[in-house]
């Protein structure tokens, strides 16, 4: 170091002069630092401030006392003083104490030169830590009061759970932690990490996978513990107590990689009890930990959001359950009815409320098929339950009743006897698929649309009765119509035609035009999509929509159906087979005998193909092989299952097997790992084809 041009103070005071005593006993900390940056002398105040004894300091670099972030700045000032670029310097710096804590000091420095021409810098330090702490505490207090007031406002954000949790977690960070995570108890009793917020990428990466892993209610885990004990859990040494505090390996790993040591968990509870917990955590880099006073704050903070979260959860649960219920109550699959093509659509309301729209297809005891669509007045779980009551009652009555007016009359009487007034509209159409005859009844429901193959569209069944559930003495009427081969019938609920901005008549006209434009060779599913699309934009958020399309198909030489191999499905299969055999012109007694032969094979699949208590598919495919003579044909039918072949078995028991041999000309059984197929062939006399 070379001397600069500016004049320097000379340190030439003997040790015993008063100045020296001032230096030694002053309340201001002094350090004399050599040009190399090492401390050569200090006073008692320096020792008191840093907690390091006077003698032990000499020879150590000044920078070792300076906190890392301040070091560059202090080095620059030090060099400028030595080089005379400045004559003195004032600043504030953070310094290390012997106990590892940090303090704040106001520092000033002056360069001096002693008798021998050596250069020094005298540093004066005044400990201002208490002032800064007080200032920080007051800032923190302001921040926390603000946080509490905002948490109280959370109830106004939205009624949905997720946005509320998200808003809460966001407002907490960083005022009360580097991460805030909300855990809620699920229906399974376990605690699920539902929302968290952090500005720290490492914490984020560590927490994300945990959203899919539940914490068991009795697990060792701070949030679970908080919920169990209904008390605050405060941990500032999670790194050292991790294995005791957390028993799940994946959560231990997450805690390690997130680097979180300070954790505070508070239970979420309302008047019904605890339903979750909130976790607050500090990353070590923030240098903060949770004190006892933070428990009170956390308790206050969490109690302000508990109510809002509890309400939101209850709302979401109800919405969730109602929607699931609604879907569960609709038929999982519709009967596969040969000679028809059926397409259905159900669209739940997009808004908060769940509707009560439903549809069903039921085989009736006289062989006809009932198509039903309905709309329960009201919303929510009650409407979904009422819809289920109506649908299942109709199915029960349809076991021994085929007349739609009598079905509707009974259903109405039953509904009127139920507690809690339920009103519903309904359209019920019974179709004779042999002849295409339709018997249409409606109860306060919009009329049914029927399109003939030429594109003529007509409404049927308007104003035939009041909604069911109003009066036990209500009477219903029916209207006859015809569904031609290739014709389409459309049953729908009001969501399809009602728009806030137009009259109902306009909606019906739009539907009529839409059905008229349908290309009968087109796939029915695509037609259902197209009809649904006409309302996609306009569907009112609180309205749901159900749609049931039925097309009567041309008779075909090919028959195909796949059903679940269950005894109660056999009757419907026979009805379809009889219709098909009639279509292709198979006369009696061949038709009845073929139905019996196929019925035997199908019953055998039901009894033997799948282990008891289980079920699987039963596939039936039929074809007509015609040769030159138009009055005869070979009818071949394959009955197939996908069960595993267990032991050689005859068909339908010994009696069934003997019977089969007499009913058909040829019966071949082909078994393998993929199931068993029975191929039947019978030569039949054909009558001219009878209707479709």
């Amino acid at each position, binding site marked *: 170091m070379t001397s600069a041009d500016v004049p320097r103070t000379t340190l030439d005071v003997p040790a015993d002069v008063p100045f020296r005593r001032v230096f030694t006993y002053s309340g201001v900390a002094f350090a004399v630092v050599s040009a190399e940056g090492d401390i050569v002398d200090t006073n008692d105040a320096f020792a008191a401030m840093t907690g390091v004894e006077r003698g032990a300091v000499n020879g150590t670099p000044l920078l070792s006392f300076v906190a890392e972030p301040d070091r560059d700045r202090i080095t620059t000032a030090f060099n400028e003083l030595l080089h005379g670029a400045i004559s003195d310097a004032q600043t504030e710096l953070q310094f290390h104490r012997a106990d590892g804590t940090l303090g704040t000091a106001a520092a000033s420095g002056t360069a001096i030169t002693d008798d021998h021409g050596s250069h020094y810098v005298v540093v004066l330090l005044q400990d201002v830590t208490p002032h800064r702490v007080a200032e920080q505490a007051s800032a923190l207090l302001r921040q926390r009061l603000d946080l509490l007031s905002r948490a109280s406002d959370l109830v106004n954000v939205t009624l949905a759970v997720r946005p509320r949790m998200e808003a809460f977690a966001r407002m907490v960070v960083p005022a009360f932690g580097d991460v805030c995570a909300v855990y809620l108890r699920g229906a399974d009793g376990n605690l699920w990490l539902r929302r968290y917020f952090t500005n720290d990428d490492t914490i984020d990466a560590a927490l994300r996978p945990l959203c899919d892993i539940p914490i068991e209610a009795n697990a060792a885990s701070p949030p679970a513990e908080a919920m169990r004990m209904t008390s605050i859990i405060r941990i500032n040494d999670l790194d050292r107590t991790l294995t005791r505090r957390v028993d799940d390996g994946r959560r231990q790993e997450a805690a390690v990689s997130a680097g979180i040591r300070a954790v505070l968990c508070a239970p979420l509870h309302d008047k019904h009890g605890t339903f979750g917990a909130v976790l607050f955590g500090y990353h070590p880099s923030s240098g903060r930990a949770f004190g006892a006073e933070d428990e009170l704050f956390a308790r206050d903070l969490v109690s302000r959001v508990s109510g809002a979260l509890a309400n939101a959860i209850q709302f979401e649960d109800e919405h969730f359950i109602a929607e699931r219920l609604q879907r569960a109550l609709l038929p999982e699959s519709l009967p596969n009815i040969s000679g028809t093509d059926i397409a259905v659509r159900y669209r739940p309301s997009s808004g908060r409320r769940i509707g009560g729209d439903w549809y069903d297809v039921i085989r009736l005891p006289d062989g006809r098929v009932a198509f039903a669509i309905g709309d329960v007045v009201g919303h929510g779980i009650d409407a979904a339950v009422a819809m289920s009551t109506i649908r299942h009652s109709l199915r029960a009555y349809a076991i021994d009743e085929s007349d739609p007016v009598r079905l509707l009359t009974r259903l109405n009487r039953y509904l009127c006897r139920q507690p809690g007034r339920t009103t519903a509209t309904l359209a019920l159409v019974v179709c004779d698929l042999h002849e295409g005859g339709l018997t249409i009844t409606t109860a306060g429901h919009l009329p049914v649309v029927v399109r003939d193959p030429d594109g003529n569209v007509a409404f049927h069944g308007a104003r035939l009765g009041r909604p069911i559930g109003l009066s036990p003495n209500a009477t219903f009427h029916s209207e006859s119509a015809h569904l031609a081969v290739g014709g389409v019938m459309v049953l729908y609920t009001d969501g399809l035609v009602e728009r806030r901005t137009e009259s109902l008549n306009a909606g019906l006209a739009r539907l009529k035009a839409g059905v008229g434009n349908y290309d009968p060779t087109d796939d029915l599913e695509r037609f259902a999509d197209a009809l649904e699309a006409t309302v996609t934009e306009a569907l009112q958020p609180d309205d749901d929509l159900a749609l049931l399309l039925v097309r009567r198909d041309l008779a075909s030489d090919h028959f195909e159906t796949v059903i679940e191999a269950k005894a109660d499905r056999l*009757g419907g299969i026979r009805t379809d087979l009889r219709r098909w055999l009639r279509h292709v012109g198979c006369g009696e007694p061949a038709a009845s005998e073929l139905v019996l032969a196929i019925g035997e094979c199908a019953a055998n699949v039901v009894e033997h193909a799948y282990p008891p208590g289980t079920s699987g598919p039963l596939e039936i495919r039929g074809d007509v092989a015609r040769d030159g003579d138009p009055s005869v044909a070979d009818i071949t039918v394959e009955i197939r299952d996908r069960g595993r072949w267990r032991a050689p078995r005859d068909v339908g028991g010994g009696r069934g097997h003997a019977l089969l041999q007499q009913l058909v000309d040829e019966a071949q059984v082909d078994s393998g790992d993929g199931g068993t197929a029975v191929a039947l062939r019978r030569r039949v006399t054909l009558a001219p084809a009878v209707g479709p």
Partner: protein
Amino acid sequence: MPNAAEVSLIDTHGDVVVLAIVGEIDLANVDEIRDEILAASGDDPGAVIVDLSPTRYLDSSGIRMLFEIDEQLSVRRIPLRLVVPEDGFVHRVLDLTGVLRHIDCCSDLPAALAASSQS
């Protein structure tokens, strides 16, 4: 459940129980029908007549059922008679499966009643 069958008690003619099976008999309802017929025959009647004229369908499970009923009643020395119209599908099934040869069959109810009162 479509095509279900129903057992209806037509009458008791003196000590003769007359039952009719209306509908179709298959795996789905055969146990139920057998139980109903046996229950209706509980009070040791002089004879039991099962009228199959309204029966539209009957498969081998139904045949098995008829043999079981016949066996149970014969143990109790109760004669069983079936009413089977000769031109019908059920008659053909009973013929093919040998029922006609083992169980008394009449083509109409009066004939069955007459036969039962003689026994």
